[in-house]
């Protein structure tokens, strides 16, 4: 059999099998521990445990986690879409012992309801070739500062945070309540190496049509970037090694967006919106970035009604009030032209 190992029933805790598809209600007992009741009266407990900001573990630590799962959770554990860990115990005592052991190992239990549920980061400088900012180290700082919301201090509603090193948004940028997104702001240069790439294909990657094919005096062809159109998105740089950013250390940075969510309640599914278009990369502490995020969360915490996700809150008070309350400066880059609704399906093949 090719593909991932299956059927899934082989890998779940044995006591879970008979309840699958028969759940009745659940109760959040404390941040990170849910009691699930099925229609036959069986109960199990889900314990949610935080991961490292970018989900990287040493095998040393992972082996310990595996052992804990073996001890308390039916010799199985799962990863969540929020890159956390979940353990399912048959017994509440097991859940509590598991909590203690995971905490001793340095991994807090938390999430659900009005808490920080999860933080996700992409690879960034840590492993990726395309990063404009080091998403994991930014998220590490945010986690260090905001961890209290995972299981101690309460928030008006669910909170998720993400961090991605570039516009690819592998870390879930634009989907979470708060996102940090790496952004290039430099106009790339075309080197002679460009000739090794598919010129037409590379030109096509540009979202704003800023790349033109050009004939050189010797008859060979190259690409030209029109500086007045280029938005420095870096898509061409990713597509062809012959196009490079010269001084990323001076020009790369990151933007902050807020209000992404998937759940259809209240304002519905929304993508995050850019509230701070640019901050420089300042490791190790990224103090401005942490200060902005903290300010946003604290303002939301103070001002929102119970149950209001950040997107719902801003929808109610409006962006003008958001900026007034947070004290953040507003920049033109945050704007878009909204009435394009209705303009876009003009006809077949139209490219706009």
């Amino acid at each position, binding site marked *: 059999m*090719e*593909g*991932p*190992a299956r059927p*899934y029933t082989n*890998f779940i805790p044995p006591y879970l099998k008979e309840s699958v598809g028969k759940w009745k*209600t659940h109760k959040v007992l404390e941040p990170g521990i849910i009691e699930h009741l099925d229609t036959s009266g069986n109960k199990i407990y*889900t314990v949610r445990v935080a991961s*490292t*900001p970018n*989900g*990287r*573990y040493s*095998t*040393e*630590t*992972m*082996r310990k986690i*595996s052992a804990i*799962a*073996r001890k308390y959770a039916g010799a*199985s*554990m799962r*990863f969540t*879409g929020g*890159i956390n860990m979940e353990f399912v115990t048959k017994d509440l005592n097991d859940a509590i012992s598991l909590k203690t052991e995971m905490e001793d190992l*340095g991994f*807090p239990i938390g999430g659900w309801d009005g808490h920080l549920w999860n933080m996700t980061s992409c690879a*960034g*400088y*840590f*492993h990726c070739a395309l990063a404009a900012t*080091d998403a994991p*180290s930014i998220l*590490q700082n945010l*986690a260090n500062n905001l961890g209290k919301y995972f299981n101690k201090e309460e928030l008006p509603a669910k909170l998720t945070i993400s961090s991605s090193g570039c*516009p*690819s*948004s*592998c870390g*879930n940028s*634009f*989907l979470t309540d708060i996102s940090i997104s790496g952004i290039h702001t430099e106009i790339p240069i075309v080197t002679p190496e460009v000739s090794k790439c598919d010129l037409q294909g590379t030109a*096509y*990657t540009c979202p704003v049509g800023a790349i033109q094919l050009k004939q050189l005096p010797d008859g060979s062809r190259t690409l030209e970037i029109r500086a007045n159109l280029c938005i420095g998105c870096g898509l061409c740089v990713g597509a062809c090694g012959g196009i490079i950013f010269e001084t990323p250390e001076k020009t*790369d940075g990151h933007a902050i967006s807020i209000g*992404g969510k998937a*759940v*259809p*309640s209240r304002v519905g599914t929304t993508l995050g919106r850019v509230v701070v278009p640019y901050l420089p990369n300042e*490791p*190790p502490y990224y103090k401005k970035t942490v200060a902005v995020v903290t300010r946003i969360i604290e303002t939301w915490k103070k001002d929102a009604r119970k149950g209001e996700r950040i997107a719902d809150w801003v929808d109610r008070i409006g962006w003008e009030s958001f900026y007034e309350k947070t004290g953040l400066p507003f920049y033109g880059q945050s704007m878009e032209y909204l009435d394009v*609704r*209705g*303009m876009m*399906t*003009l*006809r*077949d*093949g139209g490219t706009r």
Partner: protein
Amino acid sequence: MMSEVPEEVIQGRKILNELKKGDWPNFVREAEKTRYPVDLYGASLALKRDLFTTGGYVSVPGAPTGILMRVTSRPDIGENANIVRVLIPSGNFLTSDMLDTLCELADKYGVGMIHGISTGEDVEIPGIPKEKIRDFITELRQRGFECGSTGDAFRAVTTCVGSLLCEYSNLNTAEFRDSFYDKYNDFAKFPTFPHKVKVKVSGCPIDCGRATQKADIGIVGSWKGAPEVNQSLISKMDSEKLDNIIRSCPTGAISRHGSGISIKGEDCTQCMICVRNSGGAISQGREKQYLIYAGGKLRGKKGPLSGKLFTKVNSIEEAMNLIGTMVDIYGEQAARKERMGDLMFRIGMKNFLDLMKTKPQAHNAKDLRTNIFYSVNGEERERMPEEIKKAVGGE
């Protein structure tokens, strides 16, 4: 030969020392317990520049997808760091045995690090030297794992936990994913599409699986019409709480009827608010329906686009088959490296539906257009008036 430690490494170490602080689980502390080239990472922070590039190539029989070549641009500081992506079982449960195996392999072939879990919900084993990749993959497969989820193929299908743990589920998402791989594994393994295709599945409209947000093809379990009401539980409910539930229905579909309530099916958008707040007195409807979203993605050419509701189907088989039809047509129609959402953006929803041989329906439109700049052809000029006459009269 001992070389001098470069300045950026010294600076980098200082930065890493700071980064290692704090109570929260820490990836630098973890990395230091492995053979991962932390100095290279530290230097990149000091230089404020990514020090990896993509490149290199290794051909491994039976593994056309799953390998990411990572080349260091400072071999003097740290070595290449190729990555293999490992698919995990549906529902994301891994037994302790499996975890131990992965650790063993990561120690043997990699740098003793596990990326568990990626945002695309794979386990990655980083730091495998080029010359070991073949052997690694051979052993990986022998031990019951499969690599994948790179290239222009189906990326790892991801799902919410669904029926395994959740009472809201309308769809056993793990079972669905297992069947997906029974049927479509070839398209997951061999890169044949214009660009990557992500399929994500959620058991209910709450969408913990982000199927509406970041899937080229998103599948959401739902139901038709009004939710199921347990009138006896409702009649026992605190009146203020019930009022609140009624008031918080966004479409005003719920109204009181004596001590019970009634819900207008045509106004229910299956938003789950009442279900979530009623403690079991209101639950998802019995007649299931599956919502298929298309075109969600976060970059491509046009940046982040949420998925658009493409169609609603009545059976899981239909949903499963539709995935095949959609990628077939996507394969024919999209330009190279054009995500499905960008194709939809370029040609418009009407033309996309036409291509997909799907009749446009009101559910496809979150909002309607605000201009009359569209075309109507001769056949439509004949048909529309007739259909409208049939609907509302008026000769």
